[in-house]
């Protein structure tokens, strides 16, 4: 038996979540794009878009609420709903990181231009790829895929540590001026946030596993 | 209750179907009223002549137009009460067995039997009593009892046609009424009541005696009264069994007379107006008594069934 209304609610909720995921993905993309192009206006736009994301998040939460209180789901259904809500929470945080990267970009735009390290492009690509793929895994309800995406976290971690060490080394080499120090620290924070985004993807993957199978796993 | 609210709207289309059926249904109460009125009018001469003295008068002598109803009233009431005393324990026992859900095949036989008992025409009971029951009862009940207990006045003087034999056949005839209504009342006791008692560890008898019968008490009482009403009005079988002697017997083994029997025996031969009026007045007494008894019984049974409907 279908439970039509309930299924409709679930479908609409999943759709909202995918919409939210897409928005997050494009936010991250836009923020990195702004960073690469030193486009303060684009960075500003990312910061403004965040309110949509927050609104979407609020609505999804509310909708989960309504579905729970009106449809009284149990077992798999409840797990599914709660899983969707966990994922929404993670996506919202990712959006926050995108905003932070955009804020860093604004700071960097005010500083003299220095070519960006290759690692940033790489990390960005990796992170965006992870976000994209985890959304795909969510849509396809593909648990193995989600696990695979989470495992790519190591690569981002590795890059982050390299960037961190390089930047610290650079600053430690002396002869860094105030702008250089601010720039280095800001870039370090950008890398930090990218690494955090990748961490969140792992969490989403865990949530997908939970939502599909009810298993609580550590993919970190 | 908001009394202050303006007169509520009440607008319904007329229901012609209701009017038609209501008029037809009115036949029953109408007939009842007309019967009483007609009998009062028919007995007017006797009413006029004897007044209330008719009810206590003991003579019944058509040739001299002397009429008193007491012996007939006595015979009617006595035969009915004796029959009730015989039928009541049996009737309740049968009702209890019939209401029992187990042993359904035996119950089916018993139930059918009791209902057929009700279906047999009164006149058949009459002829059976006349030629079979009365002689047997005289020989095997009345004589032995009066031989041993004859020193008690009302157990002496055995006769073939007697108040006792009439009561015996009446007992058989009212048994189905008693049983059927008692069974229905017992069945109307919510099943949960029995289940609850059993679940508390009560035995079959404890359940029946402490729970089911008390719950059905009022209804069984109503059934008894209703049966009494049937006994009072029974005519033909009693006429054929009671001996038809217009007196107040000293013993239940002596002949007697009942209201209905007097009418049945004498009405077609009543030539004088007063005789006929006196007979009609007997009918009036009979119908008024049964009316009251029936009303009481019906109200009892109805209140019970309403109660069980509410608690069920």
């Amino acid at each position, binding site marked *: *038996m*279908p*439970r039509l209304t309930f299924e409709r609610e679930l479908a609409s909720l999943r759709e909202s979540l995918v919409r939210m995921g897409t928005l997050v993905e494009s936010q991250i993309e*836009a923020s990195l794009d702004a960073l690469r192009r030193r486009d303060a206006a684009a960075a500003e736009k990312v910061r403004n878009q965040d309110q949509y994301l927050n609104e979407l998040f609020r609505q999804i939460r509310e*909708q989960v609420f309504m579905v729970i*209180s009106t449809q*009284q789901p149990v077992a798999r259904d409840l797990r599914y709903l709660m899983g969707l809500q966990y994922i929404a929470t993670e996506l919202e945080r990712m959006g926050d990181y995108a905003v932070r990267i955009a804020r860093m970009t604004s700071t960097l735009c005010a500083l003299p231009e220095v070519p960006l390290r290759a690692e940033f492009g790489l990390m960005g690509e990796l992170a965006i790829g992870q976000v994209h793929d985890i959304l795909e895994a969510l849509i396809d309800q593909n648990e193995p895929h989600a696990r695979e995406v989470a495992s790519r976290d190591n690569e981002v971690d590795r890059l982050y540590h390299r960037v961190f060490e390089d930047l610290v080394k650079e600053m430690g080499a002396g002869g860094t001026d105030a702008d250089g120090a601010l720039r280095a620290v800001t870039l370090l924070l950008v890398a930090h946030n990218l690494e955090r985004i990748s961490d969140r993807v792992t969490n989403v993957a865990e949530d997908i596993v939970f939502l599909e199978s009810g298993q609580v796993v550590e993919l970190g | 209750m908001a009394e202050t609210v303006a007169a509520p709207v*009440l607008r319904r289309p007329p229901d012609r179907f209701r009017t038609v059926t209501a008029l037809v249904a009115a036949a029953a109460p109408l007939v009842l009223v007309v019967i009483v009125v007609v009998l009062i009018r028919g007995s007017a001469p006797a009413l006029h002549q004897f007044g209330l003295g008719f009810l206590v008068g003991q003579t019944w002598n058509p040739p001299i137009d002397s009429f008193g109803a007491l012996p007939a009233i006595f015979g009617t009431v006595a035969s009915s009460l004796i029959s009730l005393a015989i039928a009541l324990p049996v009737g309740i026992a049968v009702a209890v067995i019939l209401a029992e859900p187990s042993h359904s095949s035996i119950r089916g036989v018993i139930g059918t039997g009791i209902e057929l008992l009700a279906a047999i025409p009164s006149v058949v009971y009459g002829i059976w009593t006349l030629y079979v029951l009365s002689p047997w009862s005289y020989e095997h009940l009345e004589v032995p009892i009066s031989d041993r207990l004859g020193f008690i006045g009302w157990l002496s003087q055995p006769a073939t046609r007697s108040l006792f034999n009439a009561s015996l056949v009446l007992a058989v005839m009212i048994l189905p009424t008693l049983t059927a209504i008692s069974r229905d009342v017992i069945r109307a006791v919510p099943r949960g009541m029995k289940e609850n008692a059993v679940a508390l560890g009560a035995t079959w008898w404890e359940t029946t005696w402490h729970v089911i019968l008390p719950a059905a008490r009022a209804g069984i009482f109503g059934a008894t009264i209703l049966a009494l009403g049937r006994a009072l009005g029974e005519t033909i079988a009693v006429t054929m069994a009671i001996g038809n002697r217009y007196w107040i017997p000293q013993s239940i083994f002596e002949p007697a007379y009942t209201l209905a029997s007097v009418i049945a025996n004498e009405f077609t031969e009543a030539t004088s107006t007063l005789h006929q009026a006196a007979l009609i007045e007997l009918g009036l007494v009979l119908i008024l008594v049964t009316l009251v008894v029936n009303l009481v019984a019906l109200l009892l049974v109805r209140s019970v069934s309403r109660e069980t409907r509410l608690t069920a």
Partner: protein
Amino acid sequence: MIQPPAPVGRPELRTVYGAGPAKVKVDQLSFYYGKFQALHDVTFEIPEKRITAIIGPSGCGKSTLLRVLNRMYDLVPSARATGAVVIDGEDVVSTRKLLDLRQKVGMVFQRATPFPMSIRDNIAFAPRLLGWKPARIKEAVTESLERAALLDEVKDRLDEPATSLSGGQQQRLAIARCIAVSPQVILMDEPCSALDPVATLKIEDLMSTLTRDFTIVIVTHNMQQAARVSDFTAFMLMHPEHRYGELIEFAPTADLFNQPQDQRTEAYITGRFG
């Protein structure tokens, strides 16, 4: 690339609420059985082609309210009503066109009560007495069974007695019978309380598909059911002193079950009432 997101979460409700057309307008309705007042001053509007649930504890007058909507209360001699219940501009309380009203406002009862005839005849019964043409009747039978999600299960045994159906099927048959005469509003009085959970959910699914064509009003003592199926919910309560039923709160179901405005509603739906 990024578009401002459209609002999510039952947007269709939001458009209806406040702005949507009302099918039934209940206006200051009071109702009496003899001297006893059963309903007091009930006012609300039932939106078209939506499911409106009426909930409340026993004795709150929810069934009575439902029976006012198609004048079923005419069966009780001393019953009378004040105020107005307007359906399509016609006042139910004062109308004399009872038969038209009941054809327009169908009703499904707690117990399915199939008529003692074949499945086909059950549905054809009313159309026949209304004098429809055989072809139209035949079509109505198939169509209403189809819409009541029963056709597949019974199409090979339309001539079997309706009593051979299971409880849930009988209730769907009752719905089919009701929609055969093309009502606009369907009243349901605890339609699932005699059914098991499985049959209940089937009926609930059916209800949600029926809203394409019908306005549904359902009385249920099962709060969860109201939450599951309805778009709007009316909560009623017996006045502690006057003992008449009152409408306490009427709102979209999701709101009522998440943010009830009245303390008493909240107490009832969270099970802390009484």
